[in-house]
């Protein structure tokens, strides 16, 4: 196996530690951190769960890029480049690379559903007692979009707004109540259309597009309401 030096941010020292890690073409940043924790420093703090990009716990900044450490491969970083691993900057830091995601999760309204109709084989027959095949939403609630967003004022952020847009797509009849929430002062109007959220999203949720769509729906609704009020 080849070897590589990585630097890891350490909270206690307020600086970085350097480690040499073995790697092959599959080794990810998370694998490298596992190696460091198990071989060199059992107290290294970072979040992990699924190891395959489904749980959303393992977001980090690698050379300044916001990624899921479990799928970001060391081999994809050119060998002449250093590898700098830091925590996601806007999250509530608890130590080294770890953060507590409570603030992020608390932006999601209570009644956001986490499942949707499967997009695969939609014409295929389904078992008798089912209407359709279902699956989890694509958003894995990793918070990378929120971290990448340049808006500095306090607001709901791209992930929560994208989830509201998904609710409208799934339940168009309830659009009004969901639009009320998106039209909040902390909602759509804060977006500056930077679209870094969509670029950084590891699962193709396209939160930027969804916020823009919410914006047009809100405008359309305002117009409709205004014309209703004006007698012909």
């Amino acid at each position, binding site marked *: 196996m080849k070897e590589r030096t990585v630097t890891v941010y350490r909270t206690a020292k307020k600086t970085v530690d350097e480690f040499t890690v073995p790697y092959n073409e599959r080794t990810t940043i998370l694998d490298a951190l596992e190696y460091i924790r198990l071989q060199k420093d059992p107290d290294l703090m970072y979040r992990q769960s699924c190891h395959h990009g489904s749980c959303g716990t393992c977001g980090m900044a690698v050379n300044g890029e916001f990624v899921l450490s*479990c799928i970001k491969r060391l081999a994809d970083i050119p060998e002449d480049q250093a590898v700098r691993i830091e925590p996601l900057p806007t999250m509530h830091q608890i130590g080294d690379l770890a953060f507590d995601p409570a603030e992020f999760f608390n932006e999601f309204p209570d009644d956001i559903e986490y499942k949707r109709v499967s997009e695969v*084989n939609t014409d295929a027959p389904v078992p008798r007692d089912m209407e359709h095949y*279902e699956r989890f939403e694509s958003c894995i609630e990793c918070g990378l979009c929120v971290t990448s967003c340049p808006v500095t004022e306090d607001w709901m952020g791209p992930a929560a707004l994208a989830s509201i847009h998904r609710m409208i797509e799934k339940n168009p009849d309830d659009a009004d109540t969901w639009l009320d929430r998106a039209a909040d002062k902390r909602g759509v109007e804060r977006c500056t259309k930077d679209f870094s959220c969509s670029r950084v999203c590891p699962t193709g949720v396209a939160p930027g597009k969804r916020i823009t769509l919410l914006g047009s729906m809100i405008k359309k609704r305002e117009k409709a309401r205004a014309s209703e009020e004006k007698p012909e």
Partner: protein
Amino acid sequence: MQPMGNVSDTHVVVVGGGGTGAAILYDLVQRGFKATLFERGELTCGSTGRHHGLLHSGARYVVKDRAVGRECMNEVRILKRIAPEAIEANRGVFVAFTEEEEAYRETFEEACAEADIPTQWLNADELLAMEPRLNPTLRGGVMVPDGTLDAYRLPMHFFAGARQLGAVIRNFARVESFVFEGRRIAGVTVRDLRTGTDETVACDLVINATGGWAGKLAAMADIDLPITPAPGTMLAHQGRLVNNIIERLRPASDGDILVPQRGLSIIGSTQWQSDDPDDCTVPDKDVDFLTRAAIDMVPDFKDTKYHKAWAAVRPLAGASSTEEEGRELSRDFDVRNHGTLDGVEGMLSLTGGKATTLRIMGEKTVDVVCGMFDVEVPCRTADEPLPNYRQFFRHGVLV
């Protein structure tokens, strides 16, 4: 949801923040115990977060063991009721791709019937209509109520329930040793990684729910708990190719589970043995083997993109003992009371189980705890819906 009132001032410490620890913790506080959970990393960072995410109807095990099959099926029914948001409630199909596999049908269906697992035979045309990407050489398949569970969000539902009822949850807090009073464990010493300090926490009982690490934790109390860590590899490709779990209609073996999850297809698994539960380095040969196994079942797998290969550790109960005394036996998992088995009071260890059976493991364990402390409160975890996993975070950041 309300706790039954303070039926007990008994303080129970749970070590290990996987699905098993989560379910035990929830059951403990629901029955009125004071409970604290310690996890050395982030919650679910052990095997819990990393498995395939197959919600087992029990069909995979039923030919060998009817009781395990029945238990899984019962849990599937319960979990769909109490945590629907954590399950892609589609189906599983045990597909007969070969003549030999077709010949296994009768044995399989009979066993399922005996364990109350509903089945439906689909002939080749029906099955291909339902799953057009399956290898067209197939001969048919048996549909069962398998599904996909979210390996992170299902246990987080249990943690949410536990937190709502006042359980203390400490992540990044590693149990390093036990405090003894004679031959009785009276507390644990914990290293808090956030602060880099050690502290001692007194308790009336420790529950060892550390999965593959259970032998290591027990060794800290000089208890010999024979566990062989047996890691296994899984491989995810990009693209959802099927909606149902695809398995092979034959006795369970390697590379015979294909799980759709979100936009991924996950094939598993393999098994090797290791001295070290932390050793999860994926062998190259596993990736090749699993790729071929997936293509065998779903040829289009070869055109999908590699996403990730990773491994998780199974705690194989090694040298499984004959002492039945002091042991609450399920064929799938054991609750071992080290007081009666090893002469060390104040500690229970859990071995075995599956992600699917977390709730019943919690129930059986807390039944034992109730017996030890003369508490007569029945388990209610099967009856009350769990709060959504996001509710976990409504209680603020963990400290």
